[in-house]
């Protein structure tokens, strides 16, 4: 492999002599975006309406695509009105499947989720970011699994369940999945989960919150009495995850609980005055209003900033603080040590600030 890769690199370098000042990949991408490895693309080849507000997009990835580990998310870029907009979505497919699926639930007021779920016809090209995220089962698969999901929080777990049921169904025998949504009609992947449960011996508990209320610590104990003895993967709204984290801290083993947050905890709006942010590498100055993440302010001013999950998880967007102070919009913590890494997607300006990006 090493030899092949070295030959490939030589060939690319030789081709670059012909294509300078652009690189061969630029030309390939112009001819067909799917051929670009530097800017991987995928084509939407199928759409599946899961519920009224949730759609699965089936994507055929082009060159440069990197497979995810079940539970990870990928960046999805879509051109809306000429502008590339990026969001992250959990892959819901099994990595051994040649097609990649993402499942998008419309966020009220969200431009990107609405466009992806309802305004993306088959044939659309999207861009793919590299897969990332620590919300994975690991090797070997732990015994006695417990999955807790609510709403679109089922998506990373779905990839895990599809993969296990396809490749090692015996490992799901005895596992428990509790999946909450308002009504049976709202429950994403309801039918598929029932068939996975039937085929593998996994116990599938549907909780319809319109009738039964939200999942609480007591309800969990009633439903899964041996919860504390299980390795747990949980994904859902911030309220549920906060409750679970607290419960495991108090009554269980915190290391046995793995959570994935889709939305940043509510921002601490007060006491974040905003300010002028200078991105020193791009040499772009932007005004970041109170509560505005540095990334959003920079992008509005035309800066090309690294970005990933946009909710403080993936660390793709980190830049070093050169001067000034930033405030974590989630916790309200102020950071003003020069050199400290700053996550621009969840940090606001506390006065004028310089970031090395």
């Amino acid at each position, binding site marked *: 492999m090493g030899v092949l890769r070295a030959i490939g690199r030589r060939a690319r370098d030789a081709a670059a*002599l012909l294509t300078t000042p652009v690189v061969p990949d630029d*030309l390939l991408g112009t001819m067909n975006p799917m051929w670009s490895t530097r800017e991987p693309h995928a084509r939407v080849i199928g759409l599946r309406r899961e519920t009224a507000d949730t759609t699965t997009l089936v994507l055929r990835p082009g060159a440069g695509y990197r497979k995810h580990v079940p539970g990870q998310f990928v960046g999805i870029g879509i051109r809306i*009105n000429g502008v590339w907009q990026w969001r992250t979505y959990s892959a819901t497919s099994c990595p051994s499947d040649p097609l990649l699926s993402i499942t998008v639930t419309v966020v009220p007021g969200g431009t990107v989720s609405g466009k992806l779920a309802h305004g993306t016809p088959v044939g659309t090209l999207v861009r793919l970011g590299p897969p990332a995220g620590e919300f994975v089962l690991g090797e070997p698969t732990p015994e006695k699994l417990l999955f807790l999901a609510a709403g679109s929080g089922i998506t990373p777990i779905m990839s895990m369940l599809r993969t296990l049921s396809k490749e090692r169904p015996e490992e799901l025998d005895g596992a428990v999945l509790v999946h909450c949504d308002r009504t049976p009609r709202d429950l994403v992947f309801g039918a598929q989960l029932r068939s996975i449960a039937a085929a593998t011996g996994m116990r599938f508990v549907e909780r319809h919150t319109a009738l039964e209320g939200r999942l609480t610590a007591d309800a969990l104990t009633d439903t899964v009495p041996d919860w504390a003895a299980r390795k747990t993967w949980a994904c859902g709204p911030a309220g549920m995850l906060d409750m679970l984290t607290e419960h495991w801290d108090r009554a269980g083993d915190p290391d046995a609980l793995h959570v994935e947050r889709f939305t940043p905890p509510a921002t601490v709006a007060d006491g974040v005055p905003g300010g002028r942010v200078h991105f020193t590498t791009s040499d772009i100055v932007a005004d970041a209003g109170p509560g505005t993440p540095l990334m959003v302010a920079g992008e509005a001013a*035309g800066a090309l900033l690294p970005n990933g999950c946009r909710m403080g998880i993936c660390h793709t967007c980190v830049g070093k603080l050169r001067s000034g102070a930033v405030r974590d919009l989630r916790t309200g913590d102020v950071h003003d040590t020069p050199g400290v890494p700053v996550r621009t997607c969840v940090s606001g300006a506390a006065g004028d600030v310089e970031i090395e990006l």
Partner: protein
Amino acid sequence: MPTATASATQTTTISAAAHLTDEQIEALGAELDAIREEVVSSLGEADARYIHRVIAVQRALEIGGRAALIFSRFPPAWVLGTAALSVAKILDNMEIGHNVLHGQWDWMRDPRIHSTTWEWDHATPAEAWKRTHNYEHHTFTNVRGKDRDLGYTVMRITPEQEWKPSNLIQPLTNIGLSLIFEWGIALYDLDFDKYRDGTKSKAEMKADLRAFWRKVRKQLAKDYVIFPALSGPGFLHTAAANLTANVIRNIWSHAVIFCGHFPEGTETFEEERLEGETKGEWYVRQMLGSANLTGSKLFHIMTGNLSHQIEHHLFPDIPSNRYAEIAPRVREICARYGLTYTAGPLPKQYGKVFLKIARLAFPGGGPKGSVTALPKARKTNGAPVRLAG
């Protein structure tokens, strides 16, 4: 047109903007700001498709041209290949490179088409160009002593510049410069004059030279070694074709660029003018210091829409495909405020520039100009000038 008035001792050129009051200048600035706002907020999918299309056409022409030139010993292939490559190089430099490097397409947030990542088929590295052009030329447009684009440090382009005997040959210098224009720009971007007068350090000079060498060795290898070698026995034919394409691009871009700021009707300014210059006054200077070219849609694209030099200088970071629609409105504003809006076809404008260069090869040359300063009583906290890129 500037009015020439005779006084007892000398002829004075009065700025075409001398009649405007402070309030009028700021009102004019507000009108232009509004146009800018309107265009920026309407950018969208159609614009994105436009630049993608131009890039695709440019790349197709380049690949087609270079492929044809593999058979450069066959004369029709030589002619077709050279023509396609010339057009490709012109598109690369003018409608694509120059404008992308201005940040006109940064709003798309596409790392593939962005001022911070773009490199062009030109001897000067994109980084050096962005500094001298986007910053120095676009900020200090036509300010004598500050805008080094006035004569590119080798020619006397305004009567106010001091005459030197070396100016006698400047009509020839100009023709020579047009043939090697990309190299002229590259040398000019290296700022040797600043190094000599001590405003540029040795370390900076070295770093710039290194970047220059990294870029040009690849440019030279591609056009004069690698593609000729791919043509086998046609080595010299292909090298000659590539040289021809480079020279055609040079002559073309030189002509377009010299028609942008030097034809009769454009004004130059004194350095004092910059002190406390407001946004409105900046707009006025950009309009009076620039001149447009008239022509067809294809002509505008081939000039990189620098045929809309006035609109480009008002809004350097608005996508070039939008200048044509703004032009009538800017022209109307100029008419309403009694400002010169210089425009004409390329041969006529280039002829004027050529005559000017020839006349200024000799001492004197037209109204010895103290261009009248705009009415004073300035606020000193001028609105910050918005720059592209």
